């Protein structure tokens, strides 16, 4: 992206570009997030005139447009620098040295974090986990992902910036991202041809229809052909016991059946590829290297529920995957795998549109994701009604995780019993773990459900392991006494993150990083999460500064039930988990920081007197309240 912050933006060329963007999205206000994202591509930010012109073209109040632009971390309503370098700020990035690298990078460029340089050339800041934990620290440069940041690569990046080299002309090698698949099972080991799972679903339906036709006494005879085909595959999904891989573990067949049963003319299939949980990166690899399986899964889902349109919500951090995915969609259209009368079956119409996120973790929550797809701020909806009856634009919608849809494609191919033979009774199939942190071989590990934490640790070459964070900040932190526990819905459920900490790590700092994440990503809709996560961050920072006391620990225990009982969505419900889990298991990491066991004020009177000391030129012992300097 070549960006231009000079007077030509906005100008006649910008106006033309805006018209093109509006036309591409049909001038629909429901596509506002996509329109804003693309409108920003020309000058790297959204000047007031751009917002005004979009507002009037879309028939929206300017304030509403500004409200949407102000919600997403990757949309800027102020100049953001010709080059915008974001350092991924997950705890794994920090463990790989991101903080020192960023400090040095800022110093060398003479910039302060978060502030655009005076010449408008560069801005350096932090961003939430970019999903490059196995090859971090991760960077985003004008939205493009760069893995393995180190001093040499950052020196090169600095040169390229100072030369004002357009991003397209940067060496490809900077942007190469590895899959790092370390262990394959049914999913990562599958090798289906594009459309093979769809064909299997159609064939299964046809077999049922032939059987019914042959059986004159069948009570089902009166049922029209069309309903039998999809039901046959839906029954396999049900038989498989497949549960959602995105974290909540809802039964996939129940979701699909409810959507199918909802009275409506229009239904949607939505793929949730907004993989935002810090430490998770499996969907990135699935989207990069198993996209055909996913697209087959979406099509099978559409066949089962009777949807004609699909939406794939790709997280903004994975923008580099957009072009290859669009190319795949185009190839499938050409091959008759997307579009009308798929595989020659009359009336089987389905196509997929990709929306790209703009930097918001909450949008991974299915109803917030729908809000974002509809062009609004990503705020989770009040439920009921649920998306299966009132989803995208009010129509029945299924929202499924990338891995779930891939598994559904495999089930359509091999059947429910085959899938069920893998895993445990209540967690059928396999799970892909995103392993990162203190281990010799970070990357993707696919196991049958039921694998023990210890086995994963051995496979990835982890040593002297102190703790494992299972399923990211919103999951659980466990210590060595729990390593025999198993990855499964009945024991340790997970959306995929498996972050390893060895005994050199300070678990207080791990928790502090996670709390910062929640405070940064809170959508701000409800009081408990908006204010509570911010208070938690303040308390953890106070302890970090060595100004904490038992009072702070008590205050955090007081906030927990408030968030648990009254927060609007899962982000708030789980926001205290990192503190509670680490306090329970690693309390000394907190206590050694506490200044006093009762109360310590955050205000440091002695530090506040520094200005007076400077003014009077005094630096003798008498000029200090306490002895130590």
């Amino acid at each position, binding site marked *: 992206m070549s960006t231009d912050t000079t007077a030509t933006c906005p100008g006649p060329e910008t106006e033309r570009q805006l018209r093109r963007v509006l036309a591409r999205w049909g001038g629909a206000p429901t596509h506002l997030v996509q329109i804003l994202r693309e409108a920003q591509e020309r000058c790297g930010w959204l000047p007031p005139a751009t917002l005004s012109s979009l507002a009037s073209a879309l028939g929206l*109040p300017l304030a509403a447009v500004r409200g949407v632009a102000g919600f997403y971390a990757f949309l800027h309503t102020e100049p953001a620098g010709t080059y915008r370098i974001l350092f991924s700020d997950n705890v794994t990035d920090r463990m790989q040295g991101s903080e020192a690298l960023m400090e040095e990078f800022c110093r060398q460029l003479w910039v302060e974090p978060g502030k655009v340089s005076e010449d408008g050339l560069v801005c350096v800041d932090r961003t939430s986990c970019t999903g490059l934990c196995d090859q971090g620290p991760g960077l985003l440069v004008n939205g493009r992902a760069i893995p393995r940041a180190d001093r040499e690569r950052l020196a090169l990046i600095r040169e390229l910036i100072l030369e004002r080299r357009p991003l397209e002309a940067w060496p490809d090698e900077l942007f190469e991202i590895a899959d790092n698949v370390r262990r394959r099972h049914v999913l990562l080991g599958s090798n289906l041809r594009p459309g093979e799972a769809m064909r299997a679903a159609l064939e299964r339906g046809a077999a049922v229809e032939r059987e019914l036709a042959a059986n004159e006494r069948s009570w089902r005879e009166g049922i029209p052909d069309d309903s039998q085909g999809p039901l046959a595959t839906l029954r396999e999904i049900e038989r498989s016991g497949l549960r959602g891989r995105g974290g909540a573990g809802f039964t996939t067949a129940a979701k699909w059946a409810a959507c199918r049963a909802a009275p409506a003319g229009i239904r949607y299939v939505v793929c949730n590829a907004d993989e935002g949980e810090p430490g998770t990166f499996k969907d990135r690899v699935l989207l990069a290297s198993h996209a055909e399986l996913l697209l087959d899964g979406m099509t099978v889902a559409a066949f089962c529920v009777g949807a004609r349109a699909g939406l794939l919500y790709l997280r903004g951090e994975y923008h580099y995957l957009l072009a290859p995915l669009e190319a795949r969609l185009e190839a499938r259209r050409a091959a008759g795998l997307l579009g009308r009368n798929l595989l020659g079956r009359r009336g089987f119409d389905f196509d997929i549109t990709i929306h790209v996120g703009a930097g918001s973790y909450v949008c991974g929550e299915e109803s917030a994701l729908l809000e974002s797809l509809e062009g609004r701020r990503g705020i989770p909806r009040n439920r009921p009604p649920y998306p299966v009856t009132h989803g995208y634009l009010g129509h029945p919608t299924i929202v499924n995780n990338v891995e779930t849809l891939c598994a559904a494609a495999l089930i359509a191919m091999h059947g429910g019993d085959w899938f069920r033979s893998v895993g445990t009774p209540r967690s059928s199939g396999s799970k892909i773990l995103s392993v990162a942190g203190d281990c010799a071989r970070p990357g993707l590990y696919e196991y049958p459900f039921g694998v023990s934490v210890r086995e994963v640790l051995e496979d990835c070459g982890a040593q002297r392991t102190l703790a494992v964070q299972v399923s990211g900040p919103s999951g659980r932190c466990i210590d060595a006494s729990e390593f025999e526990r198993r990855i499964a819905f009945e024991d340790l459920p997970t959306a995929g993150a498996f972050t390893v900490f060895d005994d050199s790590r300070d678990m207080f700092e791990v928790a502090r990083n996670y709390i910062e994440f929640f405070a940064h990503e809170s959508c701000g809709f409800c009081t408990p999460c908006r204010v509570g996560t911010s208070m938690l961050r303040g308390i953890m920072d106070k302890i970090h500064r060595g100004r904490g006391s038992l009072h702070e620990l008590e205050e955090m225990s007081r906030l927990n039930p408030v968030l648990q009982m009254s927060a609007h969505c899962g982000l708030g419900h789980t926001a205290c988990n990192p503190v509670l889990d680490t306090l329970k298991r690693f309390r000394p990491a907190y206590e050694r920081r506490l200044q006093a066991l009762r109360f310590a004020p955050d205000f440091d009177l002695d530090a506040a007197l520094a200005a007076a000391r400077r003014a009077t030129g005094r630096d003798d012992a008498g000029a200090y309240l306490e002895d130590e300097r």
Partner: protein
Amino acid sequence: MIDRPTFSLDGREVAFDTGQTILQAALAAGRYIPHLCYHPEFRPHGSCKVCTARVDGRTVAACTTPAAAGMEVASDTEEMNGLRRTLVQMLFAEGNHFCPSCETSGNCVLQALGYDLGVLTAGFRHMFPVRPVDASHPDILLDFNRCVLCELCVRASSEVDRKGVFALSGRGIDKHLVVNSESGELADTDIELTDKAMEVCPVGVILRKRVGFAIPIGARRYDRRPISAQALQDAPRPKAHGHD
């Protein structure tokens, strides 16, 4: 005569109409559940969470949860009132609320809830956010320091006035009210004194200029009766039931 379905609220039955939420049904039946962002004339919003109640063991926002026959709702309990006190304290700590100098003192829902629930201190460290006032408009003052982000003005301006004068921007603790003009100032919007948005602010953000303190403190809305009584008086009364 058809019996209306009922649910139990703190051990006493409340009859409801299909489509009503727990809070709507309770208020219509003359039963109070503390609330802040809910307004009888608008679709429930569910953001302040002050109306949180325990329903069949789970905690939910009473304003957005549909009433269902046979529900057991626990609202006036120490657990729920304690939660509400903390939420009100959080709102006090989040903004800049100086009741003694506020024109809305005595008419303020946040303040009245504080008194009614027995909130004695903010309980948390004040955040002291920097929120400049907007005094650009000749007749209207916006004092964002007191905003509790209930979105009532947003809803009123868009749904009733059809203007969209107000919207929310930012997220998390940086969420804030914005107005509909390129300058970002109220003077450049089409707001009018007669707008619905002028009368819905539960705190002291949207103020008419030059009418301050027309009613002396001590004689104002929640000075006369506590919010738990006033809210019931304000609630839309149901049409006579029992003869249908």
